[in-house]
């Protein structure tokens, strides 16, 4: 199983979580990013993610390696959806296991922050009113 992967089908957090469990892992922190029904004040109907798959997988794998080097963690997994998503659907899942919670929280946060800022994946939002739009945030945009 790859520690970072793109998925064209629904992400199953139950299956992913089960990969993190082992007897030395006292703390598991997970992050789930879901499709919200609003963004920047506009009502959102759904969205699509497009990826430069080859580079996204390489850059994602690099982030996971960085996280394992920086933090005392025992395991980390991240899956990002591509394709069309409906409201409430899982867009990204990050799970980190560690002996202690400091490292688990820090690594989980590091991974999602880096994935959002570095991995070549783009979001196209479909609104209740008006044309769909690609999101190309400038640096320093809201988290």
């Amino acid at each position, binding site marked *: 199983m790859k520690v970072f992967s793109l998925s064209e089908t629904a992400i199953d957090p139950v299956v992913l979580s089960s990969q993190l469990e082992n007897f030395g892992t006292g703390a598991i922190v997970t992050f789930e*990013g879901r499709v919200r029904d609003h963004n920047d004040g506009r009502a959102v109907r759904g969205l699509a*993610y*497009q*990826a*430069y798959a*080859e*580079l*996204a997988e*390489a*850059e994602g794998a690099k982030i996971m390696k960085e996280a394992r080097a920086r933090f005392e963690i025992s395991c980390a997994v991240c899956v*990002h959806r591509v394709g069309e998503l409906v409201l409430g659907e899982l*867009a*990204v899942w990050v799970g980190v296991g560690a002996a202690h919670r400091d490292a688990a929280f820090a690594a989980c946060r590091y991974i*999602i922050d880096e*994935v*959002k*800022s*570095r*991995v*070549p*994946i*783009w*979001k*196209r939002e479909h609104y209740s009113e008006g044309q769909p739009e*690609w*999101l*190309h*945030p*400038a*640096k320093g945009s809201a988290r």
Partner: protein
Amino acid sequence: MNYTMLYFASLRDAAGCDSERIASGARDPRSLYGEIAARYRFTFVMEHLRVAVNGEFAPWDQALADGDEIAFLPPVSGG
């Protein structure tokens, strides 16, 4: 030289295709972007884009070789 261009997100919409083969006199991504941006009326300034050559991030002044696969990457919005 011949290059394979890859387009993503709003640049794909503007180019009207996800990839194409082109012939160009440009020898680095910087001058190549000038050509391509003019052809398809890309609105991004270079400072807001990143470049990938053959599946890896690359600097704007990297020397290009015949057959290279090049992508100009708009600001990402995954997650």
